[in-house]
Each structure stands twice: as structure tokens, then as C-alpha cells.
């Protein structure tokens, strides 16, 4: 399956009610160790209840500047939450179904170290 197929899918709960759109897929480099990196696994899906538009991560990180843009993006993607992969019942075309009683988790990213 392609990542682009998952992105922009509708996210629905067990009753078929739409709770948002999948705007990103959370990965973790923590699977079985390989030659270079460990396996990169899918740990969850990020869902935005209000918008499908491109997000620059303002709602998941502490970045504050530039102010106008940060404010706008945070408003656009207010209420974004993370759903663990274990809470995903089924992946259909253009749609992802969550299990009954799934947990909405905090979408915040751990503080990114200085990358170069």
C-alpha cells in the first residue's frame, strides 16, 4: 500500500461516523534492527477533524514563528489527535475505520534534536 493512499482518507469510528481526515502517519524507527537502521514501523495515524490541508506541523510542535502563520495553522488543525495503529480496525480505499472505544492521543511530537 502507498502512503499517499492513506493520506487524505476519511477517518471513521466503529459506528461509521466521520471523525476527521488522516493528515499524517506516525512512524517509529524501533522495529527489528537491520544493517543500517532498525525497521521503521507505523505506530499511528494523525487525524485532523477540521481540515485536509497541508499542515506544517505547527499543531504538533512548539514552533511559534512566524506568528501569523503559526496561529492560522493551529486554528486550521485544532483538535488534531493521534490514533495508535492497534486501534485501527480496517483500512478501506479512501477510508480508515477505528475500533470501538479507540483512544484519541496527544498528537505532539517529541522535541526534535538539532538535525543537520
Amino acid at each position, binding site marked *: 500500500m502507498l502512503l499517499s493512499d492513506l493520506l487524505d482518507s476519511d477517518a471513521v469510528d466503529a459506528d461509521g461516523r466521520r471523525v476527521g481526515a488522516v493528515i499524517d502517519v506516525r512512524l517509529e524507527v524501533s522495529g527489528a534492527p537491520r*544493517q543500517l537502521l532498525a525497521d521503521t514501523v507505523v505506530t499511528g495515524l494523525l487525524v485532523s477533524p477540521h481540515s485536509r490541508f497541508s499542515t506544517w506541523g505547527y499543531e504538533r510542535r512548539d514552533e511559534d514563528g512566524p506568528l501569523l502563520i503559526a496561529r492560522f495553522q493551529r486554528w486550521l488543525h485544532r483538535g488534531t489527535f493521534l490514533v495508535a495503529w492497534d486501534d485501527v480496525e*480496517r483500512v478501506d480505499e479512501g477510508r480508515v475505520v477505528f475500533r470501538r472505544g479507540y483512544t484519541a*492521543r496527544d498528537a505532539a511530537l517529541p522535541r526534535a534534536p538539532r538535525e543537520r
Partner: protein
Amino acid sequence: MTENPDAFQTDAAPPPAGQVLDAHLHVLDRQVLDRDDVPVTTADDLELDGIEVGAPIEPGSPRPTVSAILTGPQLVMRLFGGHAPAARTIRIPWRLVSEVGTVIHLGVAGDALDATWAERWVSRHLIGRIPGGRHAPE
């Protein structure tokens, strides 16, 4: 994380066991460089292994993994929708990735990859044939 006081309460996510990346934010559309920092391509899409469309997921089943970076006609597919036939897509297996930061570093030389065939072709058949093409600038 949200400033809105009436947003629903979210639970904290479990602490990560390794580097955390958001596929769209951190991986997609980033430059892919080879082991000598020579650009190979841009990551146009990712291939995920272990998700079957329409099939219910058993609780406790292994989580899907990222199996490859896709490029080639993939960009056009992403822009306009649709799927390229598997034979046309250019894959860079994820196991060749050595680091993911502001760029994606591969642990191998670019020349060994399918992804650089277009560059090698233009180099050999066009640019390389113009006098001076193989020399560094004065």
C-alpha cells in the same frame, strides 16, 4: 498541545522506543542523498508493507513497516491521482536508508541504484559527449 481549552482531552501517547517521524511532515518530499551526499531523487511516495485493503486487522498483529521510497512516475500519480503499474515505479528499498534528518541519507552509492538511471543516461549520452563535460570547471 492545542490552545483551545474546550478541545477534548487527549491521552498522552506512550513514550517512543526510537526516532519518531511523521511520514508526510518529515519524510515525504525530502531530498534523498547517497552516501557521498550526491542527490539521488526526491522522496515522492512511500511504500508500506503489511496493510491489506479491506481486510480486518487482528488485534496484536505486527505493525506495518515502511518498505521502500518511491520515485519515478510516482510524482505524477501523487499530483493527479491513480496508480502506476508496479513495473514502472522506481523503488529504493528502505533498508538502504542510513539516516533520516532534514534529508534522507542512503548508505550506498547512487550509481548502484535504479533511481539514478535517468541521470546516468543523460550524462553518458548527452552531457558527457560535449567537450569539457567530464572535467571540473576551471
